[in-house]
């Protein structure tokens, strides 16, 4: 354990933690734009700066480990001025179009501008002016809104291990790009959307088909139904329509999803979606009740089994079922039907 003083109060905290982690534990809110507990510290946004007595410059709390006897100030004038100036600099190179920005209401830059009372960027000069990359089927990248926190690049590298994107050029001209500027749609990107999920501003945005504000939606926690892994996610529901998906961070998939979970939700409210069983009568599919459908299936199975034996039947289950459902299905085929002819679409 280590003893230190934060904002005049003494604490005894675990060794090997960063100042930011300790502050989070004890309920001191420190702003961050580039920090993610799942990733290596990056210390680029400089919003988490704190004053540590004895240090020449302000220190980033995300990358400073606690030390015995440390005296930390997280919200004194010097720190607050530095954070305000950082926000001012960011906003001076960021379109102030919150009124129409899709991210409004869930944008960290907007939240901090509000919290720190920075109404607009006060430095008048050149602003980034690059075209939007909309070559990916599921999301877009708007470099003008990007604050270069690097979360997308690092998630793609450290968590997704795809390395589809990186930084291009340097200094004021830096942007996030794919190799040789081929565009996201022509890159190694697997469209997992984990970069989109971590973007703190409106630079990486899903291609929504419904306009909504976050405060108009309610979040519904559910299990992704695409495969047996069982990733947890929050459906964003506006009225009775699913308008977006966010990965759950407080569970085993740890804020990650794949392309299906992140972007494959539009079938839910799609007009072509089947909502009742269909039975072919006189060459045409006709809507039927579940009872009717089950009865038909049972009678066909019994007929076939009586006529040709149990091995004339085979079962094929879906990767969209859970492991438990798949287990039950093979048990059903073996015990109830009496055959080992059972297979699964995702077997190798």
């Amino acid at each position, binding site marked *: 354990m280590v003893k230190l003083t934060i904002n005049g109060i003494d604490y005894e905290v675990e060794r090997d933690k960063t100042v930011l982690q300790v502050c989070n534990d004890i309920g001191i809110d420190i702003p961050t734009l580039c920090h993610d507990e799942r990733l290596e510290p990056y210390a*680029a946004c400089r919003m988490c*700066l704190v004053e540590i007595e004895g240090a020449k410059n302000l220190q980033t709390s995300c990358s400073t480990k606690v030390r015995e006897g440390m005296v930390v100030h997280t919200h004194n004038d010097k720190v607050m001025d530095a954070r305000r100036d*950082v926000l001012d600099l960011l906003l*001076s190179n960021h379109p102030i179009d919150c009124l129409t920005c899709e991210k409004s209401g869930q944008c960290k830059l907007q939240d901090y501008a509000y919290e720190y009372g920075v109404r607009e960027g006060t*430095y008048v000069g050149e602003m980034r002016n690059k075209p939007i990359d909309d070559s990916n089927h599921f999301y877009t990248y708007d470099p003008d809104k990007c604050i270069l926190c690097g979360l997308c690049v690092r998630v793609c590298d450290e968590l997704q291990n795809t390395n589809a994107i990186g930084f291009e050029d340097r*200094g004021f001209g830096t942007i996030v790009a794919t190799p040789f500027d081929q565009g996201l749609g022509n890159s190694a990107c697997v469209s997992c959307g984990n970069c989109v999920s971590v973007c703190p501003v409106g630079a990486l945005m899903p291609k929504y088909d419904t306009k909504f504000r976050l405060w108009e939606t309610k979040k519904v926690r559910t299990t992704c139904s695409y495969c047996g892994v069982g990733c947890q996610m929050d459906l964003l529901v506006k009225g009775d329509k699913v308008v977006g998906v966010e990965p759950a961070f407080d569970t085993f998939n740890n804020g990650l999803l794949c392309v299906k979970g992140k972007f494959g939700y539009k079938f839910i409210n799609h007009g072509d979606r089947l909502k009742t069983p269909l039975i072919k009568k006189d060459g045409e599919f006709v809507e039927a009740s579940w009872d009717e459908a089950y009865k038909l299936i049972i009678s066909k199975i019994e007929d076939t089994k009586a006529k040709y034996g149990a091995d004339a039947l085979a079962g094929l289950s879906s990767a969209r079922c859970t492991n438990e459902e798949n287990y039950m299905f093979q048990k059903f085929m073996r015990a109830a039907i009496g055959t080992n002819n059972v297979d699964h679409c995702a077997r190798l």
Partner: protein
Amino acid sequence: MMSQEKLREIKENARPLLDERLKVEDKTEVRDGNIVLKGDYYKKQVRIALRNCEIILPESIEEYIALDGYSALGKMLFEMTPEDVVNTMIESNLRGRGGAGFPAGRKWLEAFKYDADQKYIICNADEGDPGAYMDRSILEGDPHSVLEGMAIAGYAIGANQGFIYVRAEYPLAVKRLQAAIKQAKEYGVLGNNIFGTDFSFDIELRLGAGAFVCGEGTALMESIEGKRGMPRVKIHRTAHRGLWQKPTVINNVETLANIPVIFQRGAKWFRGIGTEKSPGTKVFALVGKVKESGLVEVPMGTSLREIVFDIGGGVADGKAAKAVQTGGPSGGCIPVELFDTPVDFESLAKIGSIMGSGGMVVMDETDCMVDIARFFLEFSVDESCGKCVPCREGTKRMLELLEKITGGNGEEEDIARMESLAVTISTGSLCGLGQTAPNPVTSTLHYFRDEYEAHIRDKTCPAGHCQALLEYYITEDCIGCTKCARSCPVSCISGKVKERHVIDTDACIKCGNCMEVCPVGAVILR
């Protein structure tokens, strides 16, 4: 296989040949038992890092050995433990010559103490300050001294691999280093089982791709690892977790070139040179408006006046000296009133500049200090890696403010704006490049504030340098030859033949043609 006897034999054979050659060339003399370069320029200099430059043939390992080369390494492998070597370095108090002045011995000690299966030595040869070429001269003129310094460092901390990160823009240095490494391996002073002992040390070159920020230690390591050159978060010391997360000592070229001599002559001898806190010498690239530009190596504590006037011969073209800029884009401008300041790490920091790697640019009365600040800041803006906000966005905004001022559009509040921005950038940036980027601006604001005010309030450039604030004007010396009017691309000069001409300043585009063609020098800028 190399042995101490064999080294002595090579030395004894090579020395007479070297003496013979030097005698024929007649550019050296013997002073206090050392071979030094002749001439007034060198009289006041004490050359340790540059001891062999321009004296030995850089391609010849024999000539390096003739002047005691590799004797320090050979001796230490048999007579000193790695711990002794580290202690000698600490005792010498050799401070890093790359700019920050961190004691090399303490760096070595950290890496020495840290237990690991693999350690590395890196030579930082990514010299990039505008006008600075100290390291280049050492690499081109005496590559073996750097190799020997690295091998000594390797023995001290227990590393068997070294890397020299050198700019690709230094092709001759690269060529000479490659040749020197090959020779050193052939002679058994580098590679496996050096001097027949079980100490092995290999050196490889890594070429930089032109980014200034790769001179920053952790960005350099990222670059060697094949990643984008951006500074790392300073959560671990590089002496504990550096290159490929292994303990790494990174020293600059000049630092390494000092090391063999320290072990030949002892730490005490070294401490006898220079000042107490900054022992030894420092090499400067004396450039700018000075009469005799070139490399100057003087004991620490020598005053700027001695360097600029006694060695450099003062300012060229009979103009008055105005300032000296030290430390490149991270340094500051020191006004002529402070030329008696001794040049050492502490004294320069006290007056708002830094020692830096050794760039020393002399400025005269025609240099506009606002524009000088703009020049150095532009360099930092171009070379920022773009990782952290204060450096990426802040230096750009500061440059825009300076351009506004030199462009004649400065407003009163711009100075305060720059001052507060300078605080954010210097206290809030991730690496040294950002933290020191405002120095050229803060130091000129401190010493030459009146020039900023003249640009802003009076819309004039006192040094007569900023084009936007100047007007072309025809004096009464005009003979009415009409040459200027005929050469004006926008026809804004009027006047009759043999009568004084007049420039319409509203229409003038300040191309300067009139000034160039005037046969009597009647066109002036004011």
